[in-house]
């Protein structure tokens, strides 16, 4: 079997698996978020937290709960890092420096998992499992909860109520994330992913040298890092590390875990609005964009253009033998099409155009299929913009799922869309204006790509990097921390405001002039709007970086 054939089958097998779980897993998630019966554990949690699970919240209260929970998480995680030397399992590491602790706390609370630190030499086991991994769960649950609140806005009429954040958070964590994590961690351990509390084993190698074989609760963190589209590795080299991703089949599982929730959420959307075909339409948009991106990334990487790849004979720098070029490219596409940012190969050393694809994927707003929850609400915003554009063309008030998209709604949607490009472009410009771009490892267009990638990744809450750049300075930690924070919570506020505004409306019955939003025509229009918006926004920046390098 040729390398290309194997790579194609690898992608197809993922497609088949995702199609197979779409209905059952989507339906299961639908029952979790719409069910009202609470288990004993859940009732215990509500009592401990002190909330009434039966009380529903308006969009404002829901948003304040999200923010309050995130602020508390941020402070807790910051403190945990600052005092880690006084706690158990610190492995003798010093407290994390203030700007690093701020950056990391923001990074994990915002589901970004940008890493300005090196895991194996900075974070003790307790911070990893009781700090970082906890946020891997709950930041993912927050994203899903917000998406569900937006869908409730479409599904409900003449109400202020969007559900209860604490209930959503708890049910999503306990009934969706935790069970899959337990199964996934077991599978990864079978493959050889480490799970112990060892501080490391010193060994004498065959040639008489010494090597420290590291330990740690890796499997339990690895699985939720992928499942929650977080991406923060236990180790510096993330999923390229043999202890995080030991075999080609654990690599398959990790890509599958990354994609399973985001690709199944449209089913939940379809069920909640009472029309499964609306879910299929959204899933189709995601699938078209994702397949195009995966294909292009593979083509660029396998073709191996560029001076060094041609000298080598393949784009193998920064890639593992067990994953080879194609599967590494597929992982790179999956991790940036979602908001994951885990890597099993190093994007900085990709071919110029192959390395541009992860950048473009993030610039798409991570909607194909996007981060858990964030992808669904991002794509629904784009669908709202699409019906608005379509309405402009025929000159009538646009509507989506029986809800009128008036000036108020379109303002929220536009604000949502504008935030990340503003953060990315202003941040990149600021880095060059202040000379902080000098920490890039590479020079010329590739140096610009490293800076652009850093801000794109932070603002879109991805977390992957063109990792040559040095970002553990005060300026970079602060700037990227702000981008992550604003890039996460401003959009969430606009999404919830939009949800509140939609839920208040009474439904408009569909008429002859209504644009059907489940047909191929609409799917094509959403794809078109997404690509055009991104091209208009980012083409100049791309032309200076990867395009200048690769063409």
């Amino acid at each position, binding site marked *: 079997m040729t390398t290309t054939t194997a790579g194609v089958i690898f992608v197809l097998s993922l497609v088949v698996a995702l199609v197979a779980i779409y209905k059952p897993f989507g339906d299961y998630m639908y029952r979790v978020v719409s069910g009202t019966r609470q288990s004993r554990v859940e009732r215990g949690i509500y009592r401990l937290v002190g909330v009434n699970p039966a009380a529903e919240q308006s969009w404002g209260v829901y948003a304040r709960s999200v923010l*309050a929970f995130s602020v*508390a998480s941020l402070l807790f995680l910051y403190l945990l890092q600052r005092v880690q030397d006084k706690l158990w399992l610190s492995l003798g590491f010093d407290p994390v420096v203030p700007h690093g602790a701020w950056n990391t706390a923001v990074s994990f609370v915002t589901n970004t998992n940008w890493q300005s630190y090196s895991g194996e030499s900075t974070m003790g086991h307790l911070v990893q499992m009781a700090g970082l991994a906890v946020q891997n769960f709950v930041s993912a649950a927050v994203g899903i909860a917000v998406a569900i609140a937006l869908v409730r806005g479409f599904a409900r009429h003449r109400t202020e109520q969007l559900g209860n954040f604490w209930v959503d958070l708890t049910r999503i964590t306990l009934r969706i994330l935790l069970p899959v994590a337990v199964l996934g961690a077991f599978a990864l351990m079978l493959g050889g992913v480490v799970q112990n509390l060892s501080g490391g084993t010193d060994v004498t*190698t065959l040639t008489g040298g010494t*090597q420290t074989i590291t330990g740690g*609760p890796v499997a339990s963190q690895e699985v939720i890092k992928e499942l929650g589209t977080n991406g923060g590795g236990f180790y510096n080299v993330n999923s390229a590390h043999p202890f995080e991703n030991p075999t080609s089949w654990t690599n398959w599982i990790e890509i599958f875990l990354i994609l399973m929730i985001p690709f199944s959420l449209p089913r939940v959307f379809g069920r909640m609005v009472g029309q499964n075909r609306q879910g299929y339409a959204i899933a189709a948009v995601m699938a078209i964009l994702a397949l195009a991106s995966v294909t292009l990334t593979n083509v660029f990487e396998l073709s191996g*253009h560029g001076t060094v790849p*041609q000298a*080598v*004979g393949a784009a193998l*720098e920064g890639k593992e033998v067990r994953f080879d070029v194609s599967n590494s490219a597929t992982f790179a596409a999956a991790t940036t099409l979602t908001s994951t940012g885990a890597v099993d190969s190093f994007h900085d050393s990709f071919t110029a155009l192959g390395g541009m694809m992860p950048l473009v994927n993030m610039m798409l707003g991570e909607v194909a299929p996007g981060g858990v929850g964030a992808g669904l609400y991002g794509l629904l915003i784009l669908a709202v913009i699409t019906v608005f554009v379509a309405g402009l063309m025929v000159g009538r008030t646009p509507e989506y799922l029986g809800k009128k998209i008036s000036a108020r709604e379109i303002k929220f949607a536009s604000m949502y869309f504008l935030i990340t490009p503003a953060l990315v472009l202003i941040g990149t410009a600021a880095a060059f204006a202040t000379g902080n771009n000098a920490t890039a490892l590479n020079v010329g267009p590739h140096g610009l790509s490293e800076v652009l990638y850093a801000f794109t990744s932070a603002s879109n809450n991805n977390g992957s990097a063109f990792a040559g750049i040095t970002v553990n300075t005060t300026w970079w930690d602060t700037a990227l921390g702000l981008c992550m924070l604003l890039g996460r919570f401003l959009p969430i506020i606009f999404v919830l405001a939009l949800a509140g505004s939609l839920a208040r409306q009474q439904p408009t019955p569909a008429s002859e002039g209504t644009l059907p939003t489940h047909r191929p025509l609409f799917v094509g229009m959403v794809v078109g709007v997404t690509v055009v918006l991104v091209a208009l926004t980012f083409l100049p920046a791309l032309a200076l970086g990867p395009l200048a390098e690769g063409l």
Partner: protein
Amino acid sequence: MRLPSWIAQHLAALRAVLVFTVLLGIAYPLAMVAVGRIPGLDGRADGSLISVDGRTVGSSLIGQSFTDADGNPIARYFQSRPSAAGDGYDPTSTSASNLGPESVVDTLATDPEESSQSLLTQVCARSKAVGELDGVDGSRPFCTPDGVGAVLAVFRADGLTGPVTRVVSVNQVAPATPFVSTYEGTRVELAEPGHDYVAEGGNITPIRGDAPAEPAVPADAVTASGSGLDPHISPAYADLQVNRVARERGADPAAVRRMVEEHTTGRALGFMGGRGVNVLELNLALDREFPAR
């Protein structure tokens, strides 16, 4: 006393963080650690350590360097890939090189400490070294015969256009010989340390040369992995090393080749990933079968 609602809400949030920390940050990972103690799984959960005569020598998942104290390859062992993790294969300092596809100009400072090699020169130097060690042609496209990147800075009268006024081979310094003597009729000079020929206006022009498109030294032998801990090499790179290892150990090359095949992992289910040879396990097996004389 009733707290204002905005404080009450933050207290609820804080309590929620603590509850989830206990549940997801303590109970869940420790439960998984307990699962990892199941006989049969415990070895893997502990890092797939390998012992020889009761002494732990490494992990079957983590690559090692098979070099002497000076970093020179030990000829009786199969060699691993280049590594960017610390001084090579250091699990406490994992890293990739992160150099880009057009990293082709070395930084040649007057102080060698501040000099750094481009990715292209690293590739060329490794290819040359492996070629010499294993007795094959180490030449590659875009590489000079002396094992650095074949790259010219071409100065033209009008910047990007016009007649060529000066040409420098940017990665070669004295006493080297320029890999081409002339370029478009202009004599090629050697580089001088301390110069930045890009800043001085030179157009960077990599020269392909006439090396075969498929060099004798395989791709994985000249590139660093993503983790810096890659336990595998490609079957092609293992094959290249068979004769040397067999000679050093006084073994039959066919027997060594058979052992390579035994330690080759195919693609999982026939289509996942790439084929690889586990270097540490192979070398351990060789030490058992054909101990060094």
